[in-house]
């Protein structure tokens, strides 16, 4: 996700001045995506260098120049819309690791740990939802972004619920089970990445 493509998308509607571009970008993505002034213009300069946009007067300040999208820029935008998003590992991975550690640690109430995270996540969701609730229901831009965050958080909560259910189905002594596992393997941080890799793969399937 990048500002480049957002700017290209705005220019696809027609040629625009630099200042206009900045204002429209802010209006559409809302307060959840604040930018600094410089980011817009440096990105435009880069796009111009790459031949994706062109402007009539090269000498003037970025805010007053009028930009147009080129055929190359159009192609780039088209390609980007269809490319799957970057599969960067989401922050929950850390949570997965934490829970896995907790499962293997003796004397830890894993479900209590799950609840701590669940409460935190729900509290965060509450903040987003309340933001949405206070806003005008017609504010689509805000709704889209907040929903995205809510669904992301909800997915984590649901993962926690599923983990909870999985743990509940374990025999009555999950901690001793985990403890015996621990004893069987040499304890140490080195074991963690080795364990988490297949787990993540499983999660993707």
């Amino acid at each position, binding site marked *: 996700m990048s500002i480049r493509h957002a700017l290209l998308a705005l220019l696809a509607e027609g040629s625009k001045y630099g200042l206009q571009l900045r204002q429209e970008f802010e209006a559409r993505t809302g307060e*959840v*995506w604040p930018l600094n002034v410089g980011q817009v213009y440096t990105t435009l300069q880069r796009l111009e260098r790459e031949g994706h946009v062109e402007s009539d007067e090269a000498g003037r300040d970025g805010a007053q120049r009028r930009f147009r999208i080129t055929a190359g820029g159009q192609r780039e935008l088209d390609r980007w819309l269809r490319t799957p998003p970057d599969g960067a590992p989401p922050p929950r991975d850390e949570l997965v690791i934490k829970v896995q550690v907790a499962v293997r640690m003796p004397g830890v109430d894993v479900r209590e740990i799950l*609840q701590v995270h669940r409460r935190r996540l*729900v509290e965060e969701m509450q*903040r987003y*939802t*309340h*933001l949405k609730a206070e806003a005008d229901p017609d504010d689509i831009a805000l709704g889209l972004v907040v929903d995205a965050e809510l669904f992301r958080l*909800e997915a984590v909560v649901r993962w926690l619920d599923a983990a909870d*259910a999985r743990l509940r189905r374990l025999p009555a002594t999950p901690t001793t089970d985990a403890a015996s596992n621990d004893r069987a393997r040499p304890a140490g941080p080195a074991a963690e990445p080795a364990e988490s890799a297949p787990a993540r793969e499983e999660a993707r399937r």
Partner: protein
Amino acid sequence: MSAVLSMSQVSKVYGTGNAAVHALRQVDLTVGAGELVAIMGPSGSGKSTLLTIAGSLEEPTDGTVLVCGDDVSTMSADAQARMRRRSIGFVFQDLNLLAGLSAVENVALPLELDGMGARAARAAGLRVLEELGLAERAAHFPDDLSGGERQRVAIARAVVGDRRLLLADEPTGALDSTNGEAVMRMLRAACKRGIAGVMVTHDAQLASWADRVVFLRDGRVVDQTAPSVGPATLLAGDVAP
């Protein structure tokens, strides 16, 4: 803040002996006027039982339930019925409306059951529907309403008159997200008018509409969220350009 619903040490056991199922164990819950509380938990955690006991549809095995300060367990069946039609509104997952009655008649029914004349009750029902933006649907019958509209009419019926307590059981369970959001907006709006709301759900998104989320597991209250911090500047650091 005055407590509209106050449950203390409420337990509920179904069956006896070996077959006994403990649906609730010593649950304490207080909900004040204007507050929307979500009870969240997996299925079988006792959340629906909590709601029905709060609404006097079932008797607790143990503990006390006060609605608007009155002890529900000492009331006669008729007094409970009167309390339900005067003070408590229910919204269930679906099939809330009585077939054969139009939207406004459905909304006016609790008032009529309480002895208000048909004309006055209808006027009151229309007023509530107007407030909730459903005025043009007033004359429609449940069959002609969409799922979301049916739930919104159900909420209108649950808040009509001088209601103090709104109890909702998965109120958006059968709806898609757009309709669900409309229903939740309305529920929240209703609570902001001074009604105490209790909503049970297993859905975190739904629960996040509440001012406070109470987590229920195996019949026990295990946790609850801090009172809402209110809208904040969000995500300032979360999104990379």
